[in-house]
């Protein structure tokens, strides 16, 4: 373990200094990639497949277009491997003989005039021999489904089954005795829950500018890509393969990034490689910035999911054992899907004690564009199923949702489903009490029970209890081996933090500078963070997985401690002024130059993870939460509205209260969108509503008051006790809202998104329809509910 965090009052951590890049942003001076123009720059565009699956038969070029003005790139122009590497190499950079999803890139075009590109893209005619496709988890897993994806025989990462990207089996407790447990249980409760795809909808679309540099003999020397992204080194590694260049010849710079949410985690490897190919062939810098329609149709989304629960419950509502089958639709290529599936699997048990549990998880291939990272990364999907299911168990057993949770919540010293002992002194019972009290849950339940029978507006209140692991899953952080540097300029005395961790609104720049300033005992304004440029900054890992504050922040803390040690002999100590810090840095500089230190991630000695058995410390730390939603369902218009929202979470030390609240509020807003507004309409794998006009995200007029509260229990894993926070708020809103809708209407909807047309269908249909369960819980036709006691 690293040195313990210093005791004593904090002067910047825990306060809310101004966002580092805030002035540039409010003045409109921050430079996003589309604001940058390089000399002699051309523009790139992508010719994409119009079908879901098939063989490319012919490609012809409309003779009306002056093709000699264009640079045209095909797979044959790739100097290295035709692959976008993530975990495997199945994902091609450009399609060659076959396409496996609509909008798959086939050809690239570049031209000096941006305006002529749309007509040129339309002027490339591609004919196909169509092959049968699969578009849902069920179609993909059907025994007679066409084999749309098969693993390379030597590829041990994957299951060897047709169309299966990845499976996990996670067993815990007395899983071997599950049959007996089910045979003797008072109740067996089954349920099936589904979530749809969700578009990240960052307001800045994916975009990059690439340059290729040739040696004197004309051979390719290096490539450079700048643009909107979360993980500069992911793009470096993709470029290495596409261009057959060593790492140091692939330079990547993150420009100011206008939102990401996971949507700029893996996808920049695609668009960055494309732009660099056009730059190499054209001899010009090439900018590709997608428009909204192309970005929505062609880039990644949240994985659709299906969760099937079968739970053995005692007479008094204690979980005795359970089976959870969790399935994701991965789209056409593997990309990051196994990792998303992993997080979804580990979060499926929720914050509950399972004496016996078996989770079977699988990710299926479909002929949709590959699904990818989106805030929460599999956890919102499995937590939705679990939290809806907990309310169902409560209904079957005849206890309140609150009592159901109280009888099963994990406590300090308990083991999670992976066998991890809960060390954080979190008290979920007390958090539940606080959340239900502060949100007025009980009073609202009473009030709505009184008012609903005589009103066409049915109101309800529901909640979700959940946890979210911070950092990479299992042994991930050990493999990442992150490195952070800090340099103190010997002339100005200002420390500069060097990390590949990126700012895209969440506050990376600000919190890392706070941590450094706090350790060094100098003003926040005197600490700077360097723009992520892989030529300059080390690989501190990707900016994902709620890991920046906790993991990278801890490394920043360690570098700052080393700076202190270096400057101490030159007369600086905590309590001195910045002038004295500067004087010491200058004195150090005369002898040694800039103070230059680094810190590398070292796995805490007591963390153990078994990737095969899925046992051990799944995450260094968890954030814990109780979210309470109030809804109104209009039985005349069939619209459901979230009318009030309360979010309580324990996230360790809150480094910056304003940023932290902003993270929770923004995540809750996305969660409300996930539950009630945001529906991807698929037509044979093509997103039919790929416009903001008909893919609806919440506006300022759609959101309820968002009440955010924190509990702070310092964690030993993060700087000053901080844990991860970014993904957590995505997990709770959807199940809390659907639990509230059930309380309001008596209808147990089982799917998100839940739009007015879905509510209309259910409320006006005779008998049961998809997406919900029966109105009357006592005659539960879809589920086998037995009372054998």
């Amino acid at each position, binding site marked *: 373990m690293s040195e313990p965090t210093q005791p004593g009052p904090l002067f910047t951590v825990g306060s*809310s200094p*101004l*966002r580092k*890049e*805030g*002035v*540039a*942003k*409010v*003045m*409109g*001076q*921050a*430079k*996003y990639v*589309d*604001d940058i123009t390089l000399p002699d720059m051309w523009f790139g565009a992508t010719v994409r497949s119009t079908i879901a699956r098939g063989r490319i038969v012919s490609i012809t070029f409309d003779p009306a277009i002056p093709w000699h003005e264009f640079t045209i790139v095909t797979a044959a122009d790739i100097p290295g491997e035709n692959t976008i590497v993530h975990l495997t190499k199945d994902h091609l950079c450009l399609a060659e003989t076959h396409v496996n999803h609509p909008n798959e890139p086939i050809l690239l075009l570049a031209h000096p005039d941006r305006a002529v590109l749309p007509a040129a893209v339309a002027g490339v005619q591609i004919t196909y021999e169509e092959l049968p496709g699969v578009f849902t988890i069920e179609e993909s897993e059907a025994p007679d489904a066409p084999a749309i994806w098969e693993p390379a025989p030597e590829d041990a990462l994957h299951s060897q089954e047709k169309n299966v990207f990845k499976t996990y089996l996670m067993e815990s407790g007395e899983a071997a005795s599950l049959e007996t447990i089910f045979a003797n249980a008072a109740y067996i409760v089954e349920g099936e829950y589904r979530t749809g795809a969700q578009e*990240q*909808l*960052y*307001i*800045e*679309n994916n975009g990059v500018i690439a340059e290729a540099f040739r040696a004197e003999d004309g051979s390719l020397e290096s490539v450079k890509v700048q643009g909107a992204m979360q993980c500069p080194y992911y793009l470096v590694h993709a470029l290495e393969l596409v261009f057959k260049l060593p790492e140091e010849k692939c330079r990547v710079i993150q420009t*100011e*990034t*206008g*939102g*990401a*949410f996971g949507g700029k985690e893996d996808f920049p490897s695609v668009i960055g490689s494309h732009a660099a190919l056009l730059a190499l062939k054209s001899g010009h810098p090439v900018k590709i910035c997608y*428009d*909204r329609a192309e970005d929505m149709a062609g880039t990644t989304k949240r994985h659709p999911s299906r969760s099937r629960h079968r739970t053995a419950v005692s007479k008094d509502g204690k979980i005795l054992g359970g089976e959870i089958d969790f399935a994701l639709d991965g789209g056409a290529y593997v990309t990051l899907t196994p990792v998303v599936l992993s997080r979804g699997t580990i979060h499926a048990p929720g914050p509950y004690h399972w004496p016996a549990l078996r989770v079977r998880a699988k990710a299926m291939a479909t002929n949709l564009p590959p699904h990818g990272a989106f805030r929460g990364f599999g956890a919102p999907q499995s937590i939705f199923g679990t939290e809806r299911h907990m309310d169902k168990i409560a209904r079957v057993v005849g206890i309140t949702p609150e009592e159901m949770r109280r009888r099963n919540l994990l406590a300090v010293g308990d083991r999670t489903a992976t066998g991890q002992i809960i060390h954080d002194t979190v008290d979920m019972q007390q958090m539940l009490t606080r959340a239900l009290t502060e949100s007025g849950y009980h009073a609202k339940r009473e009030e709505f029970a009184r008012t609903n029978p005589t009103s066409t507006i049915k109101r309800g209140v529901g909640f979700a209890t959940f946890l979210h692991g911070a950092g990479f899953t299992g042994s991930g952080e050990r493999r990442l081996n992150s490195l952070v540097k800090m340099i103190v300029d010997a002339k100005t005395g200002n420390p500069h933090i060097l990390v590949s961790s990126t700012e*895209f*609104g*969440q*506050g990376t720049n600000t919190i890392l500078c706070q941590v450094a300033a706090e350790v060094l005992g100098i003003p926040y304004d005197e600490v700077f963070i360097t723009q992520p440029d892989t030529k300059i900054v080390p690989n501190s890992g990707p900016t994902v997985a709620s890991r920046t504050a906790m993991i990278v922040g801890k490394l920043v803390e360690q570098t700052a401690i080393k700076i202190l040690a270096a400057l101490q002999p030159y007369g600086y100590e905590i309590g001195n002024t910045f002038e004295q810090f500067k004087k010491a840095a200058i004195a150090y500089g005369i002898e040694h130059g800039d103070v230059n230190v680094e810190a590398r991630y070292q796995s805490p000695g007591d963390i153990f993870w078994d990737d095969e058995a899925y046992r051990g410390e799944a995450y260094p730390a968890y954030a814990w939460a109780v979210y309470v939603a109030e809804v109104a369902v209009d039985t005349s218009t069939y619209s459901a509205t979230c009318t009030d929202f309360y979010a309580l979470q324990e996230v360790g030390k809150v480094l910056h209260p*304003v*940023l932290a*609240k*902003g993270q929770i*509020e*923004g*995540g*809750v*807003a*996305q969660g409300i969108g996930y539950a009630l507004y945001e529906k991807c309409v698929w037509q044979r794998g093509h997103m039919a509503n790929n*416009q*903001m*006009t008909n893919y609806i*995200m919440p*506006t*300022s*007029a759609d*959101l309820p008051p*968002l009440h955010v509260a924190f509990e702070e229990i310092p964690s030993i894993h993060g700087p000053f006790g901080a844990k991860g926070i970014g993904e957590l708020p995505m997990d709770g809103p959807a199940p809390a809202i659907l639990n509230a809708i059930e309380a309001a209407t008596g209808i147990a909807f089982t799917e998100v998104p839940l739009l007015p047309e879905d509510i209309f269908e259910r409320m006006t249909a005779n008998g049961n329809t998809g997406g919900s369960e029966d109105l009357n819980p006592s005659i539960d036709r879809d589920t086998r509910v037995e009372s054998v006691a």
Partner: protein
Amino acid sequence: MTTITFTVNNESRTIEAPPMKRLLDVLREDLHLTGAKEGCGEGECGSCSVLMNGELVNSCLVSALQAEGAAITTIEGIAVGQKLHPIQQCFLEKGGAQCGICTPGMILATHHLLEKYPQPTLLQIQEGLAGNLCRCTGYTRIFDAVQAAANQPGKP
């Protein structure tokens, strides 16, 4: 090509452009004012918002020809030199800007809102900003920023 003369941030400008060129592109490409952003290109997201004769417009839906003779204010015309306008200062202090891509449009929409309602109610703020999408904040900090700005001297 058409010659278009208009006022941008109190400065008279003349440009040659195709008459149907979007005002957004005229600002960004011809005048190098890149504060207005393209988020959707169809008038849904509001990140290209500018003030045109005092009205809030989506500059992706306005043609160059329509801008002839108009007075345009972009985010670059809001601050006085390097001194932030009170609205900008409030967005900065209250956490109203996260990724920043919607911020220029949001600040212009706020400017427009406070001209119309110097002391807006929460509902007026929610409705006044409903044409400007923000994916980061959940809007709460933006509402705080607008309310703080309404109470500043020297606004809008």
